[in-house]
């Protein structure tokens, strides 16, 4: 699993830190770090939460084309 650069870019575009995103979706900062690095495959539920906070769709953030 490669790095999730789309998530990182979307977060940066919203001017959010990893900690702020983690707090917004009620997970630890390490979990956001792991998702961005591609070390952890989040559940659909968490993906949806992240998408809602960042104002993106699941396809935009989590679909590898």
């Amino acid at each position, binding site marked *: 699993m490669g790095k999730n650069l789309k998530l990182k870019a979307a977060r940066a575009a919203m001017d959010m830190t990893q900690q702020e995103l983690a707090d917004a979706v009620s*997970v630890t900062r*390490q979990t956001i770090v792991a998702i961005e690095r591609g070390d952890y495959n989040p559940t659909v539920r*968490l993906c949806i939460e992240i998408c809602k906070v960042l104002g993106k769709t699941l396809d935009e953030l989590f679909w590898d084309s």
Partner: protein
Amino acid sequence: MRCRNNLDERQLLQRGNVFQHTLILLVVLLIANAFLKEEGIVWAEGMWENILIVWAAISLCFCEFIFLEIYPMGKGQTAFYAVLGIAGMAILGMSFFHLAAGTESLTDGYMLTSQGGMVLEAVFLIVIFLVSVFQKLYHRKRREDEDEDEE
């Protein structure tokens, strides 16, 4: 998204893995001990064999929890590890006092005495504490690296 004990989904997954490792170690050690007993080899006095096997498994469990930053007890977990460390040092201190006085010995032939068992238990407790201290330093360094990476 977090459960009752404040762990998120990734931490819950890791906690399951830690329990799995602990169970495997416990089973392996118990089987090894059973084989040793079958061969007539007693490596620790009385019930210390079983106590030390359980402590070895518990220590692995705690060390993995610490390293993966999983705190099932919440913020009180750090204080708990400190208490374990202090208890370990107290037990070790008392044991050295007895050993220095010459009233007890660590081993009796190839077998650990109850005093030896206590020393080993104290070592497990101190190892848990030391791993928690090391983790604090290591993760602080790693967090700084991640922050630099984020920028």
